[in-house]
């Protein structure tokens, strides 16, 4: 099974090729705002390097954010088209989950900058005792809180039930979050830079696992995890209600 992983949800342009259990290629390029220009040429280069064609792909894993709205749509549009043309399964994966699934720790808080002192976050357990479903057991991962956005100051309140546990902080604003949580006597650790971003090989592997469990997405319904309405919609609601 040959899986292409595509992620344009963060500053990283991330692209990977996984063949069964072998990571054949993994690009993680911190480029900012060049995803539209760079993604398709990079895919072309990847295919040429391994002398394969797009039609040789068996599945696509794509990151659905949260992240930059415009950025997210680049990888998702690409994934939809490949899925449609070659009639292969596509699975959308949360960027927060990609980060957590790449690390070993009992409890992991992953965060992405949501601007205005807010972060998008999700909170995961990798403790066997917490796993209930087949999916959780297979992935070795359980999402404890559904992804959302929060003011960084409110993290202590959010995690109050886990005060005694060691919590790994990943992603954006981890230093600020660690400072806030340590002040409240939480046991937190942070990661080295090479472990602190969503790696595209992890995305492809997650895609493989989900698809093997029959959890592919309908490409006609697949969309980013925006986690926020368009600003104009929020303004309108504030003015007129509803």
């Amino acid at each position: 099974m040959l899986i292409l992983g595509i992620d344009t949800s963060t500053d990283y342009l991330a692209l990977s090729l996984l063949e069964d259990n072998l990571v054949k290629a993994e690009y993680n390029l911190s480029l900012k705002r060049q995803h539209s220009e760079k993604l398709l040429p990079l895919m072309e280069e990847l295919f040429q390097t391994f002398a394969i064609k797009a039609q040789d792909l068996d599945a696509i894993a794509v990151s659905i954010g949260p992240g930059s709205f415009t950025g997210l749509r680049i990888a998702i549009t690409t994934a939809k088209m490949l899925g449609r043309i070659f009639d292969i399964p596509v699975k959308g994966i949360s960027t927060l989950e990609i980060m957590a699934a790449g690390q070993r720790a009992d409890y992991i808080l992953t965060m992405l900058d949501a601007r205005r002192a807010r972060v998008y976050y999700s909170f995961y357990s990798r403790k066997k005792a917490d796993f209930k479903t087949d999916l959780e057991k297979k992935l070795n991962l359980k999402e404890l809180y559904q992804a959302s956005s929060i003011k960084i100051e409110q993290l202590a309140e959010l995690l109050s039930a886990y005060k005694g546990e060691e919590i790994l902080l990943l992603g954006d604003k981890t230093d600020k979050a660690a400072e806030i949580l340590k002040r409240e006597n939480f046991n937190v650790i942070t990661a080295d830079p090479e472990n602190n971003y969503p790696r595209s090989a992890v995305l492809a592997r997650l895609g493989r696992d989900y698809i093997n469990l029959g959890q592919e997405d309908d490409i006609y319904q697949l969309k980013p995890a925006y986690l926020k309405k368009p600003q104009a919609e929020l303004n309108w609601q504030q003015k007129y209600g509803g």
Partner: protein
Amino acid sequence: MNAKRNYKNKEDDIFILALESSCDETAASVNKNGLEVLANVVSSQVELHQKFGGVVPEIASRKHLELLLPVIDEALEKAGLEFRDLDAVAATYGPGLVGGLLVGLTAAKAIALSLEIPLIAVNHIAGHIYANFIDNPQIKKPLICLTISGGHTDLLYFEDLKGYEILGRTRDDAAGEAFDKIARYMGLGYPGGPAIEKAAVEGDPQAIDFPRAVMADNSFDFSFSGLKTAVMNYINNQKQKGKEIDQADLAASFQEAVVDSLSSKLLEAVKKYDIKSVVLSGGVAANKRLREVVEAELKEVEIEFYYPSLELCTDNAAMIGAVAYYQYLDRDFASLAISADPSLKL
């Protein structure tokens, strides 16, 4: 791709899938040999943006992502073709709203890479001009084209895609933008062009004497901000005096002022340049009063006059596919690294 591609020539049948997503219409088409439109599918988002009185870019981008695949499917189905039958894929790469442009352009890149066919990046304004040739392939060149829409007011001298000259453009609001703003101010809704035209039907176009912009340098440029201010002042003055406003008269007088400004510049250009025809393009070209006035004046100087059918006036992909065909024959292909250009000029 390393393999040298075998491109088709004018004698062959060439099928192009084109995508358009520069504003609030998600569109896909399949054209055969440029001007033969096998499918022209447009999914309008107008209703989504109505309550905001204009296009909200982020809402438009989200909708493009949702609609593009179904629109492509429908276009291929109507054309009776499969992806593998396509000779090239085209997309609008500007001007327009960047978020929307990127959805269509990225989709086209992915299709080009997947099928190993050329990618053709098309200028939206060129598309509007070529919309005329789809309905009337016999149009004689050189011609003068007035492109008028929510984003553009361009007066062009046009021979072909490589030989043209911008004679004038707006210095402030686009013509369609002026319609939208005044319609919103009058409470007539969005989009403003059809709303004002409808309200003007029973009105007297001479009822209120609004100013027509005159350029000090005698250029072919347009300006609508003075007119817009005059209309707003008129409404406020009437309100202050407690006088009732005749919406029909107001709409008709405003429309007449816009039509006057557009047609007078167009006629000046027609007299100055040696041309065979005049074409209108863009959404505002659907305005009946404008067509009427221009038609009558051009009859006197014996210049042929064309405008596209309504479905080709507003944004659509068939016009993009028409331009793409001529770019294909010129082997004017884009690299997968091309970016969207929101302020692309012709």
